[in-house]
């Protein structure tokens, strides 16, 4: 019996031991340390770490204008990009599940930007906005291309939204296509025999039946856009004058450029709380809208 127990213990150790070590070292310990550091004035270099209580949080809420700007920037960015990415992704999926010529090639093309990392995409688009748009503006004379792209807050904001949608819509398209293909043919045929219009079929049959995919896509886009960092860094670097700085970038700047690690970890803790709350709340909300076919 005790040999059997030892065997079971050994197996437990072999199978789950490695991941437990990785998890403890990389997530659990840093997370706990982060909670502690967020109540200190640590600067990351000196060994001196003083407990300051809620001082960092007071600073963040009362004095830190850059953080407030970053917070509202991130909220606005999340709202705009979640709506647009899902609209574009779903529309592409809706059209490309119909019998069109070359739809597989089209699907591939729309998905392609997604495999390129945000940093490189941001640099590519920096060229498009600065040089490409300028040239198009000269050729076409359209005001849209002659805006000071990336030069002020509104164009910086929309530039990041455009690139984000361009990058992520294909991913959502793939998920929505799988989900639309799962809607049963019989239900759709029955509806069209009953004389339902295309719009009615979309609204009353397809949309309710693909709610699980909507849950997933909203979850993904909310968490991607809330944590958006790479595009921000390579497109605008938060400028001009920190007006287009996301929360993730703000935490990065505070920690590694201003060397305020204590303040940075306090922001990171708040960031975690907000991300966790928003995503859990959203999953609850859309899950309640899911129906069985």
């Amino acid at each position: 019996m005790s040999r059997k127990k030892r065997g079971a213990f050994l197996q437990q150790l072999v199978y789950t031991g490695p991941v437990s070590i990785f998890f403890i070292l990389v997530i659990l310990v840093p997370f706990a340390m982060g909670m502690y550091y967020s109540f200190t004035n640590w600067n990351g270099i000196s060994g001196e770490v003083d407990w300051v209580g809620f001082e960092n949080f007071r600073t963040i809420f009362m004095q830190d204008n850059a953080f407030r700007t970053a917070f509202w920037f991130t909220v606005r960015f999340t709202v705009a990009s979640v709506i647009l990415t899902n609209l574009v992704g779903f529309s592409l999926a809706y059209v490309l599940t119909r019998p069109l010529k070359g739809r597989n090639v089209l699907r591939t093309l729309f998905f392609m930007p997604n495999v390129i990392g945000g940093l490189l995409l941001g640099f590519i688009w920096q060229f498009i906005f600065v040089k490409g748009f300028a040239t198009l503006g000269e050729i076409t004379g359209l005001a849209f291309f002659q805006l000071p792209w990336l030069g002020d807050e509104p164009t910086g904001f929309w530039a990041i939204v455009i690139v984000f949608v361009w990058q992520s819509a294909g991913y959502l398209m793939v998920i929505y296509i799988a989900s639309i293909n799962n809607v049963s043919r019989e239900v759709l045929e029955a509806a069209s025999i009953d004389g339902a219009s295309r719009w009615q079929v979309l609204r009353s049959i397809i949309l309710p039946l693909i709610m699980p995919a909507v849950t997933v896509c909203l979850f993904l886009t909310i968490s991607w856009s809330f944590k958006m960092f790479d595009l921000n860094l390579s497109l605008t670097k938060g400028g001009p004058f920190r007006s287009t700085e996301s929360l993730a970038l703000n935490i990065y700047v505070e920690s590694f450029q201003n060397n305020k690690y204590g303040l940075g970890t306090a922001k990171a803790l708040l960031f975690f709380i907000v991300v966790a709350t928003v995503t859990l709340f959203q999953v609850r909300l859309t899950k309640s809208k899911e129906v069985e076919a």
Partner: protein
Amino acid sequence: MKSSSAFPRVMLQIVMIVIAILFMAPFYFLLVNSVKSLGDILTNAASWPETWVWSNYANAWRITRFTEAFGNSLVITIAGILLIALFSAMAAYRMVRSNTLLNRIQFTLFVAAMVVPFQSIMIPLLQVIKGLGINNSIPGLILCYLGLGVPLAIFLLHGFVKSIPLEMEEAALVDGAKPYVVFWRIVIPLLQPMLVTVIILNCLWIWNDYLLPSLVLQSQHLRTIPIATFAFFGQYTKQWDLALPTLVLGITPILLFFLSLQKYIVEGITSGSVKG
């Protein structure tokens, strides 16, 4: 429904093709200008190149030390995805087959960890890595990827193991096979579809990741492709004749990977997200 077939379908076809062309336009700008001289780029960024300056690519390759960066990215990505897949499969298998309180707590912790943003742990994580003496090293970076990657992988594989019937394993055990052999010879092959998903999701993430390697790796000879690209842009601002070929070089490997394995990638993303 009948009235809306012939003519609108042709219209829709044309509209989709136009949208696809607009969607691909950034790649046109990127490729065309990557072989122009800086002067030509500045005069007209939309035109076809008048003279083809292939030396742009040679210069970009040399400045970014592309061979080295590519090698580093490759080593890190391959080691990361294989180890994440292996260790997660082992843990997920054990957690399903041995339903103890400890394993249930562990699984809950892994699932909870998926909502923790990287920014919330990055600063202390660097302290841990320095404390272990593996800062500024590829193994240190891979350890970070293991910790960050296993929660989602375990979550995906856990659901999949549950759908595998026990009978085959039991039969093999009755025939006298050792438990580890059963895992390696029977469970791993059955897990293959979900392992492909895990490998693909992690491959895209690790290959493209910038922030973590930029914090862990400081030496120039350890640079990955994203770090080398970022360093280039820090040094040569507005040198588009060098920057664009750098970007083309940077995106080519992952695009080739995608185009050759796109069926698996699309399937992997679908099954990875349905679970998530």
